[in-house]
């Protein structure tokens, strides 16, 4: 059964109809990616899933249970966590405190400690800088922190919004390797990316989004082979 099923979702910003009937499924253990131009509605989809926004129409289920009416803070407790777009770390908290915030809803002290160690293993840079204020980290480090913080919730489903934005190529590789690693450890990933080539190459399946609607879907490889996609998102003829 699908872990996450979003069915015919319509989300509005006031009068702006941002999502016009989106249907997306994510199966357990998958990496699914959403690609699309700026303003297509990718962030809106993630925020609607995580409960920061609520759909006006449509349903979202997690393991068969509806979650689209729940407030964001109770969706986290069900195992969905998000690394928001644009490295929104808590600037005035230290790295370690940010990571602790990620485990906010958890009670298992042992598990939290284990996961903290694990995040430090994935991102040794964060360990070196654990006492530094997050606002003073470099862009790339903040991105690592945002991902690490999302992982601290010990999610079943991890929502990543443009984790490679503005990073040097070598860091982009590191981030994508880490995503694969996290996925191999059993975390299901829904990934929003501008870097379509990289995203499609690690994704099991992908959706292409255009102004609030899904226009294409398939396996990562299929979309990589699609000349339309190539042209529109990868800039190749």
């Amino acid at each position: 059964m699908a872990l996450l099923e979003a069915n015919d979702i319509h989300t509005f910003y006031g009068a702006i109809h941002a999502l016009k009937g989106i249907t997306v499924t994510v199966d357990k253990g998958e990496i699914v990616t959403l690609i699309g131009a700026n303003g297509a509605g990718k962030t809106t989809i993630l925020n609607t899933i995580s409960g920061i926004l609520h759909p006006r129409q449509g349903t979202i289920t997690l393991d068969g249970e509806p979650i689209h009416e729940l407030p964001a803070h109770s969706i986290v407790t069900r195992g969905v966590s998000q690394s928001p777009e644009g490295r929104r770390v808590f600037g005035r908290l230290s790295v370690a405190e940010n990571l602790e915030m990620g485990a906010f809803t958890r009670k298992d002290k042992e598990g939290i400690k284990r996961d903290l160690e694990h995040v430090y293993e994935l991102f040794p840079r964060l360990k070196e800088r654990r006492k530094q204020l997050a606002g003073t980290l470099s862009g790339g480090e903040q991105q690592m922190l945002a991902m690490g913080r999302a992982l601290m919730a010990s999610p079943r489903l991890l929502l990543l919004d443009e984790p490679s934005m503005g990073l040097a190529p070598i860091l982009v590789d590191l981030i994508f390797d880490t995503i694969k690693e996290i996925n191999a450890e059993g975390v299901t990933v829904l990934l929003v990316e501008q870097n379509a080539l990289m995203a499609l190459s690690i994704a099991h399946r992908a959706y292409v989004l255009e102004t609030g609607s899904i226009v294409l879907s398939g396996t990562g490889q299929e979309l990589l082979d699609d000349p339309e996609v190539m042209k529109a998102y990868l800039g190749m003829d």
Partner: protein
Amino acid sequence: MKSASKFSWMTPVTTGLIGGVVALFLSLVGIVEASLGRYVITGILSMGQVFLLAVYAIFAVQAAQKATPEHGEKAPVYRTLACAAIAGLMISIVLALLVVVGEQIDLRGVFIHATPVLYDLLTFGLGVPQGIFVLLGFGLLMGILFGVLVLLPKALRKSIGVGLIAVPVLSVTYSALFAGRGLQLPVAIAVFVISAVAIFLWDRFEKPIRTRSQALPSGQQRTMRLGVWVLAGLFVLALPLLGSYPSEVLVITGIFVLMGLGLNIVVGYAGLLDLGYVAFFAIGAYVMAIFTSPEITWFPIHTSFWVALPFAVLTAMLAGAILGIPVLNMRGDYLAIVTLGFGEIIRLVALSDWLKPLIGGSNGITQIPKPTTFGLAFDNPQKLYYIVVIGCVIAAFIATRLKYSRLGRNWMAIREDEDVAQAMGIDLVRNKLLAFATGAALSGLAGAIFASKLTSIYPHSFNLLVSINVLAVIIVGGLGSIPGVIIGAVALVGLPELLREFAEYRLLVYGAVLVFMMLRRPEGLLPEARRKLELHEMSPDVAE
């Protein structure tokens, strides 16, 4: 960071001109004149003259320091002195111009304080032209003196500086408290010498004493720390011995500390800019009045201060939570505007004809009894002070505990980024309402004490200015910092209360202090460690 800059002789000139403008401003708004009657050194030096001297000191020192450009080579001695002298001279030139122009044209049509008394003061009683030369010479002299001060070794410089500041501060405090006429010259000299020597010794021996005490076994260290706390406690408890008027000032300061601690939770911890904070102060006061005043006949319960107190606090708390609900989704400036409106609504409701039969409208409520315990009446400021102190201690305790609690952490996360905080699993509704309610409760407590202190309350006591004052207190003290609230209240409420003749300049000084703070010390006087770090040491590595 500024890059290494070259020295230019224009720097001391502009520094001096700015100083001149400040001196001119102080003279023309009347601050200098108003404080002529207040002596710092009896019969010799008035407060107004001290203000002008302070301008010379500040800007001459600035100019002397700027003789060495940032990241540049150390300036030669002659240049430092020359810069200070130029600045001093510039200040005098500006003041001299005022006198010369003022003698020709009557400026009083525009500046009512441009009086002969002022000119007389500025020309040392010698008049034009002799006085002008003396004024210019005086500026040069002051510049050179403060230039020399800058050149002295650091320890000596600090001692003299502290000594110079100690004299007026002590003198003014003394005069304000005991209606004195300043310090006698020998006393002033003694104060200068003692404080200079004390600072010198302290700087010399503080480190070794500290290291030695840190080497002590932890048990003894704890005893020592306990000792310090006990001494501080005794000091606080002994303050009313100063007399009735000082205690009155302390009570008012304490009421602002209480409100500051509460608003600090809302604004400092949770980042919710609340400009209607006075509403809860008013609610606390009115509930206290309704419960205790014999004037209120429609209310079934008549009781004492102590029974009414929890009701006042709870009602304010409830009002805080209720106000919180409509503004849950508002941020920043919108929140500020709506809460501001709420504060005004409460005041206007209290003032309205509609509620006049119940709470007296503009006549307010009078005959509120003072607190009594076991027949002991807290009927003077000295006794009331203790109630305020107890309130402040409880509030400070709560604020400290909350700060380091899980709730405090939640608030901090919300302050940083609401959306992300929510996505981390923080319940925005609950946590925001708790912040509003806790803050309101402390404000209500302050209001209740305020009501029984004054024994009568009127709607006009609860205007917007109170909210602004409290906000200024916590910003100047250091947003989020608990000791900061106390310092802020002493500086912005206690001191002005002591210096009554400056009452009309209060807002002016507030404005100046706020602008200065935002430019020079945006983190406040006693900032939270975290905020200091953020604003001053953005360099990596240390965040403890």
